């Protein structure tokens, strides 16, 4: 992959991450490197520990091992990396009065979201959201968005401010084919913008065509490398019998 000499934090290094909870080992000794300018896909059956690993990377749950960001020179970064996270779901029901703008203001600015939003903040968000074809969604109620709309809104929030690492947790459920194509297209664009992209995906055809690296997880790493190599591995054929074909 090409090198982005201007990017600040080039590589996410996950070293020997282990997560234990109530006597069970959910993730065992997982190490992987994900690079800026690449899409790294995490695949595996349900319950393989993919989301758990993400939570450990985000620092949300106790774990052992290390998560470090390094620059090109391989020296660990001192500043806290900016992380954009696209979750699987949110706790927001359709009776929740919050608008998309309220959410965006709360997550991306210091302005109290319950007060009238100043023009400059609104304009800034509108411009950013336009890129994700979501500018018109700002005044919609968040709890009433469709699957595809949600996805674009969450991606817009995750990428503002520009993150060092974009982490997506199976962000494609309940989205139609057209919406999916649009979403993958946006990811392709973001790949070129100095960020590490890490995605949990069940969409193996997406992984095959778009990912630069693939990690097959089942508690521990079963296989990792280029998609063609991982898809040809014995572990993959065992985990997805008959899967991965196009």
């Amino acid at each position, binding site marked *: 992959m090409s090198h982005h000499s201007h990017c600040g934090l080039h590589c996410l290094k996950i070293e020997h991450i282990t997560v234990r909870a109530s006597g069970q080992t959910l993730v065992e000794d997982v190490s992987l490197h994900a690079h800026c300018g690449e899409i790294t896909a995490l695949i595996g059956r349900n319950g393989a520990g993919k989301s758990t690993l993400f*939570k450990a990377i*985000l*620092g*949300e749950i106790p774990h052992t091992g290390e998560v470090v960001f390094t620059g090109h020179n391989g020296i660990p970064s001192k500043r*806290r990396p900016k*992380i*954009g*996270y696209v*979750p699987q779901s*949110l*706790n*927001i029901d359709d*009776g*929740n*009065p*919050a*608008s998309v*703008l*309220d*959410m965006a*203001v*709360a*997550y*991306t*600015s*210091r*302005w*109290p*979201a*319950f*007060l*009238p939003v100043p023009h400059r903040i609104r304009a800034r968000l509108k411009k950013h959201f336009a890129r994700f074809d979501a500018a018109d969604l700002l*005044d919609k*109620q968040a709890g009433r968005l469709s699957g595809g709309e949600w996805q674009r809104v*969450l991606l817009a*929030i*995750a990428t503002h401010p520009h993150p060092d690492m974009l*982490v997506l947790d199976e962000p494609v459920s309940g989205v139609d084919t057209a919406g999916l194509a649009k979403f993958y297209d946006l990811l392709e664009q973001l790949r070129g913008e100095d960020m590490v992209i890490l995605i949990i995906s069940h969409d193996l055809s997406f992984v095959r065509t778009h990912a630069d690296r693939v990690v097959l997880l089942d508690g521990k790493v079963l296989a990792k490398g280029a998609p063609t190599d991982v898809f040809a591995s014995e572990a993959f054929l065992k985990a997805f019998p008959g899967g991965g074909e196009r």
Partner: protein
Amino acid sequence: MSDWLQYEFMRTALWAVLLLVPLLSLLGTLVVNNKMSFFSDALGHSALTGVAIGVIAGVSEYRLVMVLFGVVFALCMNRIRRSRLASTDTVIGVFSSVGVALGLTLLSARGNLANYQSLLVGDILSVSTSELWVLAAALAVTALVWVVCFNGFFAVSISPSVAKSKGFPTALYDNLFVVLVAVIVMLAIRWVGLLLINAMLILPAAASRNVARSMRSYHLLSLIFGLFAGVLGLWLSYYNGVATGPTIILVLAAVFFGTFALRKK
């Protein structure tokens, strides 16, 4: 029409309503959004135990003990709520029952349970002028916390993971919110009563939620509904010679059902 305000105690009560109702309406917005109405209800019930501990310890200012107890009780409940080890609903129900049973047992041991009846229903007409200052200070502090911390409270309630990724100290916000609710509920219980405090907390927000379409309108309408019901309830209770707190709640309930009919599609 304004002869109800010729009495000093009614003017004080009006001030109390004008301070207390916005305070509870503000907190109520996020209590309702976070689906924590059962949580705050249990908190109100635990006031009985708080008072009992204060009385038994012989502390003259038992309200301080109540507030401290409420904070500890809320933090414990929140911990279990967050752990997802057991059904949240059930755990809060258990906490609530213990709060009531323990309080009643301890108070009855002193043999004068009837003395604490006012705790159940409260009396907003009993507010003294000096207590108005306490209410004003509580409102000012809460409003300030809201301006500084609302984004954090809101962000954590929608998605702790996204909040964490954006650098919000999620556990801090989560606990700060329940501590704030605990302190205000315990302060207000003397005037509103533990049977009605939760209604006063959630009804303005619940009514507002029926029609609001953004956080701004949600807050604004909660305040308007709360103040409208507070003043109208006080006025109605004066002319009908009935208890003020329950009258305010009935007006709020009417507003709730009215807005429910107008509910956005």
